[in-house]
């Protein structure tokens, strides 16, 4: 019985006996003695090795600098604090001597710890019942570079980095408007992860902004590791196969979405922004679309949308055809098909599963491996397995073609998450096709469609502008019309103002008038 009890309790053990002793006392005030203060801080931080102190003297008073050498910057400490202090002559208040942009005075000893973690330097003076906080934090950040997974051919090659300030800077640089508004929140009781909600005050719907804030405030967790955590906390339906927040590492994409009245969420330590509310079609739009000509980008849009259908349906369609309805295939195509499936020992469903799983294995293996080895895996997996599987009559030629086309189609989607969703949905579709043929495929499609129409992203119908239908928003969905024809913002983001463009080609009218 004890075994089952443990299992049902998820192996939860009582942890009270192992809980560590905490040295923090509520409302601890600064003591006049430096030694006492330093000892208290050292105890509160459990004598961490990166806590450093340095003795100074100012105006004849003995003082001590205390900081974490892993978050504070030595050069800044030297420039802003030590050098000015050593050069001062005569009585001057500390605020005037120190050249750092921010010097604050405080007396709550418990706050010292938080400030030090943020990279600030604390200065205690003998006999003074307060301390100074001086900004001197170190910034170690990656260069702004093109996102690895969202490359474009033309257009900006900037991408977000892991630093929140830099990321907001990248957006501010693009939208020099006083309406661009940033709100900070701190989530994670231990990690204290900083998050920023960014939106256009005059465009974004206040209800959406409020809803985002409400959902963020209700996060009650010890740690927030990644935007994936935030996504799962905020999303309406986590177990839906479709992502309801757009994940991007491109500032220009964020800018475009902000200008449509959407809200971006960025967090410290992660180079990706989450955009809400989004629709299904947003995942098939690429920044490249707006850099190339309307006809060209419309063509690529169409290809991308058809790739969705191909990735979702091609294997199941093929399975249904060769196991139920081969009459629909023209004779000229049927006989080659028949000869290729003639000696395959598995039922079509199993054959397709086998290949799909192999492809997923190759893909998953390829991601983890260093790139030179990754290529080898591609060749070994793709060519060798493909070729010899056919020769050994384990799978048919055409099945390999179908699975390969499907795999390529699923990588066409500009968004990685959506590609994953399509890949996952393919498997139930294949099972349905293998069991019920076209009837199964139709049932599966119907279920997916029902789900898509029911889904909402922060109050926006996920499948708009198709359902509910709005012709004007179709201008930038399956095709992309010229920019000067997109006079109105898409209504799905619920913006405060719809109009975004008037007649920007007045030069054409003027030229006619001159004649």
């Amino acid at each position: 019985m004890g075994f089952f009890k443990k299992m049902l309790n998820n192996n939860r053990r009582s942890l009270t006996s192992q809980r560590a002793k905490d040295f923090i006392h509520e409302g601890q005030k600064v003591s006049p003695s430096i030694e006492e203060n330093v000892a208290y801080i050292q105890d509160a931080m459990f004598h961490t090795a990166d806590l450093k102190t340095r003795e100074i003297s100012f105006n004849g008073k003995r003082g001590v600098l205390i900081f974490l050498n892993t978050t504070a910057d030595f050069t800044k400490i030297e420039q802003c604090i030590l050098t000015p202090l050593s050069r001062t002559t005569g009585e001057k208040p500390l605020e005037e001597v120190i050249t750092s942009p921010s010097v604050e005075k405080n007396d709550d000893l418990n706050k010292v710890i938080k400030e030090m973690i943020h990279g600030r330097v604390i200065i205690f003076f003998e006999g003074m019942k307060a301390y100074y906080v001086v900004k001197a934090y170190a910034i170690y950040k990656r260069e702004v570079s093109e996102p690895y997974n969202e490359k474009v051919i033309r257009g900006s090659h900037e991408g977000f980095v892991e630093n929140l300030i830099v990321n907001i800077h990248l957006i501010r640089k693009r939208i020099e408007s006083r309406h661009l508004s940033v709100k900070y929140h701190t989530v994670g009781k231990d990690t204290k992860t900083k998050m920023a909600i960014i939106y256009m005050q005059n465009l974004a719907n206040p209800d959406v902004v409020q809803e985002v804030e409400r959902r963020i405030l209700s996060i009650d967790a010890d740690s927030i590791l990644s935007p994936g955590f935030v996504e799962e906390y905020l999303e309406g339906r986590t177990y839906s196969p479709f992502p309801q927040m757009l994940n991007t590492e491109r500032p220009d994409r964020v800018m475009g979405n902000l200008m449509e009245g959407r809200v971006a969420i960025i967090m410290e330590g992660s180079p990706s922004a989450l955009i809400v509310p989004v629709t299904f079609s947003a995942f098939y739009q690429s920044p490249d679309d707006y850099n190339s000509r309307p006809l060209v980008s419309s063509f690529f849009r169409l290809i991308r949308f058809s790739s969705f259908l191909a990735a979702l349906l091609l294997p199941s369609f093929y399975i249904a055809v060769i196991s139920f309805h081969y009459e629909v295939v023209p004779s000229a195509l049927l006989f080659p098909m028949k000869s290729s499936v003639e000696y395959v020992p598995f039922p079509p469903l199993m054959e397709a599963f086998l290949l799909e799983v192999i492809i997923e294995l190759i893909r998953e293996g390829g991601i983890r491996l260093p790139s030179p080895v990754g290529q080898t895996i591609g060749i070994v997996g793709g060519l060798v397995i493909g070729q010899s599987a056919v020769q050994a009559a384990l799978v048919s030629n055409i099945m390999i073609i179908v699975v390969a086309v499907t795999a390529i189609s699923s990588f066409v989607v500009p968004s990685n998450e959506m590609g994953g969703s399509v890949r996952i949905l393919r498997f139930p579709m294949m099972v349905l096709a293998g069991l019920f043929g076209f009837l199964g495929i139709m049932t599966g499609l119907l279920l997916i469609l029902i789900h898509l129409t029911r889904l909402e992203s922060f109050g926006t119908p996920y499948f708009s502008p198709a359902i509910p239908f709005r012709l004007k928003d179709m201008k930038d969905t399956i095709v992309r019309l010229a920019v000067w024809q997109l006079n109105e913002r898409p209504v799905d983001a619920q913006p405060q103002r719809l109009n975004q463009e008037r007649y920007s080609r007045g030069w054409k009218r003027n030229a006619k008038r001159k004649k």
Partner: protein
Amino acid sequence: MKRIIQLILSLFLFLTLTGCWDLNLLRDARMAVIVGLDRTPEGKLLSTSVIREVKITEGGEEATNLILKSTGHTPRETQDNGDRRLNNRYDISKNRVILLGEKLAREDIYPVLDILYRDPKSALNAHIAVTKGRAEHLLDLDTAGDTLIGEYVDELINSAEEKTLVPIENVQSICPVLFDPGQDFAIPYITIEKGDLQAAGIDNEKDVSVEGIAMFHGHHMTGTLNREESRLFLMMADKLNKTSRLTIQVDPGKSDDIDSYITIDMGTLKRKLDIRFNPKGEIHVDLNLDMNVEVVEYPDDKLAESTVLHRLDKKLSESITHQSEQVIKKMKRSRFDGFGIGREIMAHSPEEWHGAKWWTKTYPKVKFHPKVNVHIVGHGIIS
């Protein structure tokens, strides 16, 4: 929790209780591409199916035929008897051609076709044709040149349709006509005899060719039209496909000289069909045909002169009108109402329609007045 249990249960039921599972694996099908049906001397039905086999060899794929013959009292029994001798499931869903032996075609053909209309998976877009003699003999050829017989006959009929040699018909399209007393259908008539080549003293292999059409009345085949007659019939029935080509002797004086013949391609065709009833109870049909033609061969030339053109226009009009009359005579003899005159009467003057039996007797008495007007509008790129 309840929902999860429901979900698992339904998934389990899906996988186990599949019910009447109509799995129909391509791998297990043996597909017939052409089927011939004959009446044996004993009165049984003989079915000859050509089944396509594809073998994978080092050099690629190689297609061969498997000829399966079986007999029985009904088509279904015949098919089942064949299936018994076949390693996998016999399948006619991708059949391209159904060939009827002439003897069988002259009987009621509907009982033979019934099985095709009843089965949802049968190939309704297959061609249907009549063979002179027995269909079995044609299929026994196995190949024509390097092409497999099934493919060959299919393409043969396709190209004949394109050149308006035979009407475009398939198993589905003849079905409503079979049951319509007011119109009749015609299907290709295929021979495997040595034909005109042997007459010219050339001893060649047996060759398959479309020799015109088989005319039907109701459910029975009642006669044939040869190639020239068939072309004219289709012209009069306003069924011009891509093109139609006629070779006509315009100067009989120069007998058998190439110069005396002209070959024309039909450009556009306008047909007008009027049905008149006179007080005596006679039915008159005016058939006016306006043809714009292009000369594709005329060694005598001088086509640039308008007098020559006018003479040829007139000669051609006369000649084609005369030939049309001969064709109509033949059609009436076979009681073959290929123009659907009966249907016209039913639709436009129902008071004159007195039932199917009346029509069978009346149709041969209908007076046709064909009138053909030919205009030469082109003569190739030489002038």
